[in-house]
């Protein structure tokens, strides 16, 4: 339910970013690595904005794919593979208990993933996150 506090901060940040204009549309970029439930985020934006000046605003959520790249051998892999690698490195006590479910810690702190990956081809640890870490309000469209 971390999605609720993210939705709350998006709404507050958007409201503060404009002065008197009516906000028609807000574009939000979410990286796959954030491990967020997009439906819950969408629903929380809808509910939380209903009592604000954003009640009629359209929220567009764009999800970017996570891509990892090994600097040693050039191998690239995506989120599904990354989750498998992470599961092999994490013991149960390293998960976070949320509403009777165990969530991987990257659900809350995505950047931890760097310490929970090995290149699936060469085993290297010099890994770059090429994309998929975004959490940003990328566009705010206001009435002219």
């Amino acid at each position, binding site marked *: *339910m*971390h999605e*609720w*506090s*993210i939705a709350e*901060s*998006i709404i*507050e*940040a*958007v409201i*503060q*970013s404009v002065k008197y204009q009516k906000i028609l549309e807000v574009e939000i970029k979410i990286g796959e690595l954030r491990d967020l439930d997009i439906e819950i985020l969408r629903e929380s934006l809808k509910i939380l904005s209903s009592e604000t000046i954003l009640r009629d605003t359209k929220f567009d959520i764009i999800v970017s794919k996570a891509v990892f790249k090994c600097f040693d051998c050039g191998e690239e892999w995506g989120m599904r593979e990354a989750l498998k690698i992470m599961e092999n*490195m*994490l*013991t149960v*006590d*390293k*998960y*976070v*208990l*949320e*509403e009777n479910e*165990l*969530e991987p*810690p990257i*659900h*809350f*702190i*995505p*950047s*931890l993933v*760097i*310490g*929970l990956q090995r290149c699936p081809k060469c085993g290297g*640890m*010099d890994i*770059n*996150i090429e994309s998929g*870490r975004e*959490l*940003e*309000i*990328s566009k*705010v469209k206001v009435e002219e």
Partner: protein
Amino acid sequence: MIDPRLKLIDKKLEKVESIILFGSGKGGVGKSIISSAISYILSSRGESVAYIDLDFYGSAGSNLFTINSQIRGCRGGIELPVSDGVKVISTGYFLSDNPFPLMGKDKLDLLLDLFSAIDFGSLDFMIIDLPPGMGDEITFTQRMFKDKVSVALVTVSSEMSLTVVERLIKYISAERINLLGVIVNMVNLFRNYRLEELKDRLQTRILGMVSYHPEIELFRTIKEKLENTPSFKNELEEVVENILECFR
């Protein structure tokens, strides 16, 4: 582009009264032991305290404060687990002994993720254990939490360590950050300065002179180290008293 994490961080630190950054010029001067000991003693005196381990490469927090239950998540993010009366967080709780190689951009992202994902609640003191030197962690924390931040520096009395700490003091005063003072650690192992000499040289308050007590190595957690080594605890109690004096 707006990063909503900045807004989240503002909200999550709303009820944090004071943030003390524990820094050092050089590594290996005992900063984690001193900052965790101060966290424990402050908490024993009834203050509400969180110990935040930002020394990602040399993380020691998960050894000094052990937790025996699953970390829990809530609507506001991660609930800080409590160990020996202190709210604690360290990447070591999630990564165990896995190395954590971070490039500049990754580190900044981690700092934003960490502070925006934790439910700190109400705190009298947030004690931040920084890595040695003037890296992203010190600039990030002082930029983000400017009005609430004070700094305490830890050094040994070797020429090399004192020279680097003098440089750090220059940065802190140029940035107009509130410097509480310097804790000189392991005084029995290095040159035996008099307190006044150090005060003159560093041009700041000396919060305490702490000896090296080899017996603390026999114990794992900071509570065990302090409770089984009364002479060590007494020296740290005095440091805590001097720190609290700065806030009165």
